[in-house]
């Protein structure tokens, strides 16, 4: 049966509308970024005068030079890199280490259900923002890089996902290694981890994006400006509109607009996300359905 032949006029008109609509919708998701790109490369008069839409007007790259010259911006970028690398590594280590034992049943691992129950309860109920903050302060983490790493080190939802993934690993694989005298360490390392690479990649990527995008912890847990992560710094610039860091030379503002400066910083912050985006896409579907369904 030839589908195209059987289609009526109405069907074809619908296709045209549908394709156009989807195109417009898709473009609407990148046009704001393109607008910022144009704005960041435009000169002062054009940016303040609102002449810029999707193409730079009288292009200049001075905003980027200013951003990269400013020590605070680069420092904040670096802090974000550190927290993302160390934070994601720690997070994955803790998640894997607890998910593997929890994927056993209580016959194999006594008290497993008690531990699982405490994980699930902590996922469903929490002390709220204030006690959480006070505990972190009491533990002496305020104003250290650890405040950006430790509190995020155990995403409980990821534990539940990873555990469900481990549960679907065929038991036969493990039984064979037990007969060969393998310890649980060896089973985790040589049996479970190799076949869990897609799940591990998914959680790692999503964890890294989460760390890169996190800003609230930097805002309430860090006061020292040398330890402020990038998103938190960006917030003072684009949401609070505080330009003091870049006001050192007032004559600079003859050359470019503060709007261009904000746009440039926003874009530099987004670049790492755009870099990993193609990899993220590979794991979209597994990321959202991972471990959620079991028979």
């Amino acid at each position: 049966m030839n589908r195209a032949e059987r289609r009526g006029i109405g069907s074809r008109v619908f296709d045209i509308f549908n394709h156009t609509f989807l195109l417009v919708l898709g473009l609407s998701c990148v046009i704001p970024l393109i607008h910022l790109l144009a704005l960041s490369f435009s000169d002062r008069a054009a940016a303040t005068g609102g002449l810029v839409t999707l193409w730079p007007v009288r292009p200049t790259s001075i905003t980027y030079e200013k951003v990269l010259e400013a020590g605070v911006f680069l420092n904040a970028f670096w802090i974000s890199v550190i927290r993302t690398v160390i934070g994601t590594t720690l997070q994955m280590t803790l998640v894997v280490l607890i998910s593997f034992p929890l994927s056993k049943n209580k016959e194999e691992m006594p008290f497993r259900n008690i531990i699982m129950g405490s994980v699930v309860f902590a996922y469903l109920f929490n002390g709220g923002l204030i006690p959480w903050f006070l505990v972190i302060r009491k533990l002496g983490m305020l104003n250290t890089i650890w405040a950006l790493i430790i509190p995020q080190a155990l995403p409980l939802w990821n534990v539940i996902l990873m555990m469900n993934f481990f549960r679907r690993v065929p038991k036969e694989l493990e039984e064979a290694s037990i007969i060969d005298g393998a310890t649980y360490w060896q089973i985790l390392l040589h049996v479970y981890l190799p076949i869990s690479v897609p799940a591990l990649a998914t959680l790692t990527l999503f964890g890294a994006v989460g760390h890169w995008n996190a800003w609230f912890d930097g805002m309430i847990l860090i006061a020292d400006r040398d330890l402020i992560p990038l998103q938190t710094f960006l917030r003072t610039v684009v949401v609070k509109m505080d330009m003091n860091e870049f006001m050192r030379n007032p004559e600079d503002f003859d050359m470019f607009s503060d709007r261009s400066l904000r746009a440039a910083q926003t874009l530099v912050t987004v670049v790492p996300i755009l870099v990993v985006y193609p990899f993220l896409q590979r794991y979209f579907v597994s990321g959202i359905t991972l471990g959620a369904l079991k028979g």
Partner: protein
Amino acid sequence: MQVLAPVVDDLKEQASRFVRYLPRLWPLYVMVIPALIHLVLLSYYPMYGIRIAFQEYKPALGFAKSQWVGLKQFQLMLDNPSFWQIFRNTIVIATSKIVTLQFCAVILALLLNEVRKLFYKRSVQSLVYLPYFLSWIVLGGIMLEMLGSAGVVNQLLQRAGVEQPIIFLGNNRTFVPTLVASHLWQQVGWATILYLAALTSIDPQLLEAAAIDGAGRFQRVLYIILPGVLPTLLLVLCLDFGLLFNAAGFDQVLNLYNPAVYSTGDILDTWIYREGLLGARFSLATAVGLVRSVLGLILIVVSLRLISRFTDYQVY
């Protein structure tokens, strides 16, 4: 105590197996230790800290020694007229977001499903998924830039003949719709994934049989494809309402709101942050947080119960 007997027996039995098999099992328990320490320090210790909701917390005295004041903080909360407003705002914003998003996501999934050219479909998907991965700092910055009175949106509106610039984020009539719309824009692509997955499980033979029987394209969507995604829609709605208090969207609201729109835009989480941390009213904010946590727990437990009753979907 009679009721507990089987539980105690079970624990005893587990304990005896624990002791017997420890030589082989010990790595499992060692593996759990780092996460358990984290759980105790950063989940359960804060839960212990909830006690300050019933105290007058003084930082110098800490959780343990601050003075007990009974239900005073809760009384303060209920007497505060802005509490009810914030509570209502939270529910209104969250509900509008959930309903708008899922309704549009189903439609978008159906539209994407009608695209035959795989390359075209993939390209659109790549574009619409992108905003999901941008933080609300970046998105908030973009919105403040584009929606301001001198921003590009108002420039275009002006050229189209609108005389007064619209202050989208600065007045109570437009603030919540702007929140809902921007949240929709950020999430709608991502939200289609589950529906697209559900669509792949619709039997193609069913569609072909319907076509042979003379069902048009629209009829096939209405009678076969749409019923195919309905269970997923109900499941997602159920989960979303279970997480109602998160759905209001602290990240988004905190970066977009301002005092001019507190009466419609202030939500529980932003209030707790402002009064509790910035205003240092620790005990009062903890009391409000406790109410939020308890109601949240009830909602999620009810929704998980409903889900496990009607589907074979199990979260853990």
